[in-house]
């Protein structure tokens, strides 16, 4: 493939204000349409890495480009437009519990409207239909008017995915999306992400703890340890032993 990568890290460093190293000299490319899984111990920098892509975290040095545009200097409107094309799924779902599923899903669309229209709830008919279709894709259309906190964990995570679909994203970042779910709902959520990757060509980047899940869903696995990129292989070349080494503390890969 000669196509340009959708995301590119070039010598990215992140040092927190208290001196902790978050990311250290990270360089790699993510091709369009890839299902990338990031593995590593807690605190290895997986969440930080993910959040630098939509600038929820700022980097200290280096450069990140998305669709060949450097994103470091975006602010205000340009930053919001960047975030609009990058969906994000969280471990804790981050739904607005007291609001209806419909409102939660529509909130994924707010960056397409001026602020005053979002406050008045003036969504177009087309977008309300889009909300229903998004929910259909995660098999939850019947929950449209249910309050978000009345749903189970797995259902909430699927609503979060429907919210992300409203952004019409090119990239989905998922930060430990199944860490608080049971095995059955885990499969549903991961299958949904896989379907969006295959059917819509959305580039998906997932942080995972589970080696088994990583091997089942990934096109490619990268490993982080203490903020450094210590492993990067296409799924065909990944062995069980490699992955175990990433999780073995203190050992060099």
């Amino acid at each position, binding site marked *: 493939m000669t196509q340009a990568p959708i995301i590119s890290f070039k010598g990215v460093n992140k040092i927190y204000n208290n001196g902790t190293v978050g990311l250290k000299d990270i360089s790699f490319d993510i091709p369009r349409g890839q299902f990338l899984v990031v593995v590593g111990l807690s605190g290895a920098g997986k969440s930080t890495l993910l959040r630098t892509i939509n600038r929820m975290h700022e980097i200290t040095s280096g450069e990140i480009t998305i669709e060949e545009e450097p994103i470091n200097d975006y602010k205000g409107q340009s930053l919001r437009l960047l975030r609009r094309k990058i969906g994000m799924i969280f471990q804790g779902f981050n739904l607005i519990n007291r609001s209806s599923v419909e409102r939660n899903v529509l909130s994924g669309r*707010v960056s397409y409207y001026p602020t005053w229209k979002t406050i008045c709830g003036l969504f177009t008919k087309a977008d309300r239909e889009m909300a229903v279709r998004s929910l259909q894709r995660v098999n939850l259309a019947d929950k449209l008017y249910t309050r978000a906190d009345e749903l189970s964990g797995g259902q909430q995570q699927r609503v979060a995915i429907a919210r992300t679909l409203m952004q019409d994203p090119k990239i989905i970042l998922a930060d430990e999306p199944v860490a608080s779910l049971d095995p059955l709902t885990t499969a549903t959520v991961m299958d949904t992400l896989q379907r969006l990757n295959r059917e819509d060509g959305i580039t998906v980047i997932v942080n995972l703890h589970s080696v088994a899940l990583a091997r089942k869903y990934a096109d490619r696995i990268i490993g982080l340890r203490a903020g450094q990129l210590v492993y990067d292989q296409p799924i065909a070349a990944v062995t069980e032993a490699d992955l175990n080494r990433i999780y073995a503390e203190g050992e060099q890969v």
Partner: protein
Amino acid sequence: MTYPETPRRSWVQRWHVKGIVGTVVLVVLLIASSRMTGVDVGMFFSNFGQFMNLLVRMSSPAWDYTAVIIQPLLETIQMAILGTTIGAALAIPFAVLSASNLIHSRLLRGVTRLFLDLVRTLPDLLLAAIFVAIFGIGSTAGVVTLAIFSFGMVSKLFYEVIETIDMGPLEALESVGASKVTIIWYAVLPQILNQFISYFLYTLEINVRASTVLGYLGAGGIGVFLQRSLNEFNYSQTAVIILATLVVVLVIDGISNHLRRVLL
């Protein structure tokens, strides 16, 4: 019998030093302040006869006076509702500006909080006296007083509520590309609305009671009639006013307690 090994308590914990010292300090402060201010508890009992005398003179309420005070009583309630609503509405933006989890600029937060502290230090009776002087005797002065008084109180309660919210939904809305105002509207407001209403009702309760006293300074409502009857030593009328006010306060408290139970 041997105990399994447990961590040892320090002597401060073992002898409850903090609790005992705290209690002693409190008792000393109480005695010292009653000495210094010259409060004579004995006087309460020696002058109890005066109190009984007043009660006897109030024991035959002039029931036909009820018709006269219904209108000012309603005015008192309206003053409280208006004042509380205006104050609470104004408090929302200031509460947002004071919340440390929403506003990262210490300067902005500090200035807003200082302003709110200043507003809160003004006693409501002082405010009433000032506004009666400005707007003249009548309910306008009362409403403005109650609005400012509620504003000071509610803004503090509100920003403390905002600081306890779950930040997850805010992160989600931020990642979607929402503007700051949209984030507050979608992710903050639904989380705090019920507690806001609960505090609003609580403030309303306080204001209904407060506005009877404000009327005493000429700020409209039932207080004006209370003052008049007391000045004329017409204690049978005073009794009716007190009883009627009691009923109103009880009803408002009951409604607001019920609503708050339903909401939370």
